[in-house]
């Protein structure tokens, strides 16, 4: 079942084009081709439509939404909903907008991504270049940790964070995301370093280079692509997390996804749909930007996450 060997996205092929397009041997007739294009375009529409509708309705005054057609372009363009979502909308009991929660998310995601990626790199280096008895079992234990339903750790985690004095804090969430992201980052670096010639490491060892020197001088300089994959994967996952944020930091320390859900689902009085949409797009913006800038790597991360071992 070695999907890895035939998966161009894993391992050393990371340096090549994202999905190498090759000559397809299959020939298709003209009618079939028209049909294929039609289906492909329809699906493109299906994927784009919800986001497009959110976008155009986020720049409409509320009256145009409740009394009008969601597909229609705004008659009167306004940035008011965006301003409101960012800085004045009611989140819970405070009219703060999403801004403070957006900042919480940044403060959470940066250290969590940095720490889990660095640890993953070290683990991957050890599990491939300093192998010892039972290392595969240890890796298996780390890997299974990626796939547990997090409901199984919610209760003890809530208690532990309370005991550590980290309940409701951004640092508490950093800890949680580092722990449950370690399996994935280790997986990425392990698969990547497995393809790196061990002879080079041994040669450096004979020349007197130690454990850390080899890591800094030999492994890290070639780790660029996989580091990007790991960073993007962790960034997307942690930014988009809702369960941990809602469970452990529901108050003023909440990440932006939790704040967005509060904005959308618990607003009393008039439902300001345009503000909801602007808020949703704001919350999605960082991961979307990363996707637009480095989408190729994002896809590789997804693939590597699905193709284990």
């Amino acid at each position: 079942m070695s999907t890895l060997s035939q998966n161009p996205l894993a391992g050393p092929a990371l340096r090549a084009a994202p999905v190498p397009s090759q000559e397809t041997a299959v020939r298709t007739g003209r009618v079939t081709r028209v049909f294929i294009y039609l289906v492909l375009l329809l699906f493109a529409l299906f994927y784009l439509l919800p986001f497009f509708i959110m976008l155009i309705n986020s720049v409409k005054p509320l009256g145009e939404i409740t009394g009008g057609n969601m597909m229609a372009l705004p008659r009167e363009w306004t940035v008011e909903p965006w301003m409101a979502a960012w800085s004045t909308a009611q989140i819970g009991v405070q009219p703060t907008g999403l801004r403070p929660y957006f900042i919480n998310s940044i403060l959470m995601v940066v250290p969590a991504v940095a720490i889990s990626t660095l640890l993953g790199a070290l683990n991957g280096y050890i599990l491939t270049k300093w192998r010892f008895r039972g290392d595969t079992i240890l890796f298996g234990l780390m890997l299974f940790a990626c796939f547990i339903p997090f409901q199984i750790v919610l209760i003890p985690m809530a208690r532990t964070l309370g005991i550590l004095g980290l309940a409701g804090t951004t640092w508490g969430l950093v800890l949680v995301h580092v722990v449950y992201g370690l399996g994935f980052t280790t997986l990425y670096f392990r698969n990547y370093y497995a393809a790196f010639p061990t002879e080079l490491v041994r040669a450096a060892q004979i020349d007197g280079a130690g454990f850390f020197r080899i890591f800094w001088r030999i492994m890290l300089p070639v780790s660029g692509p996989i580091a990007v994959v790991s960073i993007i994967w962790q960034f997307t996952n942690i930014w988009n997390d809702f369960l941990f944020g809602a469970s452990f930091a529901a108050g003023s320390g909440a990440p932006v996804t939790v704040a967005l859900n509060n904005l959308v689902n618990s607003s009393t009085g008039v439902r300001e749909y345009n503000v909801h949409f602007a808020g949703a797009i704001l919350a999605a913006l960082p991961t979307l930007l990363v996707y637009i800038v480095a989408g190729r790597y994002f896809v590789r991360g997804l693939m590597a996450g699905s193709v284990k071992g």
Partner: protein
Amino acid sequence: MAVATVRPGVDWRTRLQDVLPKLVLSPSLALILFFVYGFILYTVFLSFTNSRMLPSHDWVGLANYRTLWGLSHWHTALANLAIFASLYIVICTAIGLMLAIFLDQKIRGEGVLRPIYLYPMALSFIVTGTAWKWFLDPGIGLENTMRLWGWETFTFGWIKDRDMAIYTIVIAAVWQTSGFVMAMFLAGLRGIDNEILKAAQIDGASTWNLYRRIVIPLLRPAFLSAFVILSHLAIKSYDLVIALTGGGPGRATELPATFMYSYTFTRNQMGVGASSAVIMLMTIAAIMVPYLYAELRERDR
């Protein structure tokens, strides 16, 4: 295998180099052992106690499991999961496979289409839920739009309908992940040796037979990966339900993940909540453990 082995009489520096790898690995290992496996054991333990609002250590045996399986609420959650997971997996796989095969026909603009199919995967389920909740709302969404466009009798109120609401979760979840499944199949297709296909065509195989008899069987690993990933996503689904329907109307879209949360944290029945979490873990383990075991053994050889 580690080259450096401990020899008697070597200086401390060499010995340090020997233990250093294990030393550096140990914090990660300690974190995983404590926060994953220790926590799992603790939750399993709690599922055998009469914990309510706070964890208690009074042993009650299987009482929580008996309560759990006697709750119609839990049966609703399981039935919903069965409907949701099977439709979600089948539809995502079908759409993903079809789009991948179509995109593999030397399509002009593939570079534009591929990212469009995939971008929903970069969004949070909360964002997806917000968008679809409104799109599916009969009052202002699709139904209203169709009526304004002149189709006066068009009706699409699934999200407010107890019997149909679970299908709206399927729609939104398929929207979010089917592009990802497409990428998995596309990678599989691009990994197939073209010589095999050419040989088959020279032998006179039709396109349909080529795919049915040769290509799709060769994609077996991609099918397996897709199944494993999708089923584990389905069992863990929580955010999307919260954002799209909040589990309602009534309990119509309650899933095990939302059940566990509400019993543990809002209904103060922590013991029952813990036992539902244990059952979720066992279900996922039944799928993941054989898969990971096979993959790791493959790699070790």
